[in-house]
């Protein structure tokens, strides 16, 4: 039976029943780390390969930000990296953490993420992270345009 009170079916992530602090920590980790060990173990070989490639890409993304911080990358390259990484993160999350929060951000309701839900989540989250890093680097004089 479909639950029409949510745009998609309800889902309970493993940490849904944690205490407040535990929940905040788990959600913070969820925002920053798109992979999941359980999903990795349960996935088919090609998904595992994709996840492994993702880890390499994550290392690349980190290196990119370090280079940006050293003033070695142009804004266009950073935006390109940001976009490429976001697309990859959408794919990874749909396999490993395929859920998004429903309703108030301080609540405990989660639901299954459709492709567009995940695009919106990753796009919005990475926009906030990217903008924060961009403004921080620019105000520290480490990024020149």
């Amino acid at each position: 039976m479909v639950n029409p009170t949510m745009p998609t079916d309800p889902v309970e992530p493993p940490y849904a029943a944690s205490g407040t602090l535990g929940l905040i920590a788990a959600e913070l980790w969820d925002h920053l780390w798109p992979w999941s060990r359980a999903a990795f173990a349960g996935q088919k070989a090609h998904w595992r390969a994709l996840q492994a490639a993702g880890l390499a890409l994550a290392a690349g993304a980190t290196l990119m930000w370090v280079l940006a911080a050293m003033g070695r990358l142009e804004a266009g390259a950073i935006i390109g990296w940001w976009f490429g990484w976001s697309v990859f993160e959408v794919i990874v999350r749909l396999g490993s953490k395929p859920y998004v929060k429903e309703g108030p951000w301080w609540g405990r309701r989660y639901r299954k993420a459709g492709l567009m839900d995940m695009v919106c989540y990753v796009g919005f989250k990475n926009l906030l992270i990217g903008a924060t890093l961009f403004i921080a680097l620019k105000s520290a004089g480490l990024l020149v345009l």
Partner: protein
Amino acid sequence: MKMTIPSFLRSLCTAIALSFAAPTVLADAYNARLPDEINSAPDLCSYAPCAEVLPGATAFTERKGRPFYVEGYAEREGKRELVGYVMLSTDITDIPAYSGKPVITLIGMDAQGHFAGVKILKHSEPILLLGIPESAMVRFNEQYLGKFVGSNIEVGRTRPGEDVIGLDAISGATVTVIAQNQVMMTSGAAVARQVGILEPVVREPARLKETGATLDWATLVREGSVKRLTVRPEQVGLPRDGGEPFIDLWFGYLNQPDVGRAILGEGAWRNLMARLDDTEHAIFVIRSGGQESFKGSGFVRGGLYDRVQIRQGSDTFTFRDLDYYNLYNVAAAGAPAYSESAIFIVRPEHQGASFSGAYPWKFVFLGNRVDRATGQRSFANFDTEFWIPAHYLEGGRPVIRKPTPTWLRVWQTRALEIGLFATLLVTVAAVYANRDRLTRASTHKNKWPVNAFKYTAWVISIGYVGFYLMAQPSITQVLTWFHALLFQWTWELFLTDPFIFLFWIFIIVTVFLWGRGLFCGWLCPFGSLSELLYKIGGWVGLKRYQFKLPKPLHDKLKWVKYAVFFGLLAVSVLSMTLAEMLAEVEPFKTTFLVGLFNRSWPYTLFAAGLLGLSIFIERPFCKYLCPLGAALAMPSTFRWFGLKRKQECDSCKACAVGCGSLAIDKDGRIDQRECLLCLDCMVLYTDDHGCPPLAQERKRRTKAGLPLTPIGADGYYIPIKPVAAAKPASA
């Protein structure tokens, strides 16, 4: 096989292409490529059309003065006669316009101080690219012609009582023209003061107090008697050099005895003071970092130091070779090592201005910034303010009345309109927050308790917000912010358009609270106009022609707007100019800012076509094309408070059938990204004659003779729970 196109078809295609291209062709100053020399060559008029802005002048001098200007002369009866002055705005000020970049303007002023000509050489204003023709800016600038540079000229109404001359603004480009007015008045006044047209500002001399304290360098820095000006390589468009500054300068005011003695030592300070008269002021400068010289490598005897100057208010003080003394040693203990030093003497009477040590002033380093994308150089200056500490002045620091910032003046002069607009936003938010009361007061046959508010909001939004205030939010604003974030973010710039500023605060807050529907469905001027046309179409008998697209087709077409949004975003990374042009997919400029009949016909046809289509299909632009709607739909995924549903909604189609936005799927789920919060489904939710499960329960209870209890927040009748009978008292 050779394909031939009939000649009439070729002519038609050419005409269409030209019609679309016409506004772009006219926007010839948009991001125009100017020769690099225009910023630096002594002979400015070899690179800029000086004769166009100073009619009658046939010969021009090289750049002179500080800030720069050129003199224009005419030959009359064999004599050379001064006609006036020409100045390049970016030689004087870098006030940014809406795009975050300055409008580079060539200004002509006659010998009596009246504006003689204005020409925009380059601008990056998106609104002037396709929306408002550049001719509107030309007409705006023509308002200055003949006006005296010393007049109090403002954008807005003329106020004779306050001696203010008003200029007609350009509807829809308020921020641009306000910035342009600042550029015109600042540039004109700066040159007029230099050449003696305007009287200098007289400032009361400082009455310096001697405390007898012995000051070391750290104390001097801490109390503000010595200040620092650091320019980093990236600020002038150069690559970072391992943290090494482009130039790192320290400076201070030597006339104050305690400071002067601390820096120079007793003997040297007394010698220096003996060489100055009462109106002259000594400033020391040392370079403790960087390789760039503040004196300038090209300095020649008899010339001007062109890399440093002092500014007090609108007066600029430059230094010639005779204004320079050697600084051999800094006596203060703990002073940093330095590789270049100087003492500069401010001689106000040489420059027709007054300088007072009691008032704040700025030490300015003049440079050029290289645009890394285009390689073009532009004027840039870097400054640090100095104000002598109060304890060195008899009676302390004088009280200074700072002029009201431009953005604040806009808020003050439009206070009533801003108040009404803010009231509208707050009222709509408050009405929506109380939607439960309104929907309960409505029925599926009478939705006026909701619609009265919604339709009123539409009418006000179309008439007052759209046509009168021209405050139509647009994807171009998002792109402009993106640009401003990259280049130069200034809060003042965005505060200068209070309506758009307030509207975006409202949009951001309500999108996170309830989703994009409150803005898109209740307050977007174009969306309101679109749906009002649909409603009017129904009321005047066109209902039988009105239709919805089949849901499967709608579910495909709704993605088009996201493609438009992502396309614009991607293009904006490559070329803001192209993105601004493509943003014409929004018919907002044509409808509200410029007017349906003031644009070339393809734009008018497009906007009129969408509005015409709106009579038959509810909000076709909002559902399928609007990039702003798509941009707001994405965060709407995570709105905090959505609309309510019942379990029975999974099989009941009553709400879905009536949903104008086609936002309810076959399972009764609401797509919050598509929902425009019309509240029709919420009216049904508590309507025991409209909502099938409720109606069923109503009939059951009525048949069984049970009371109809109130409907709870869950959308069901409050259950009837029999209360246990009281136990009889024991005997």
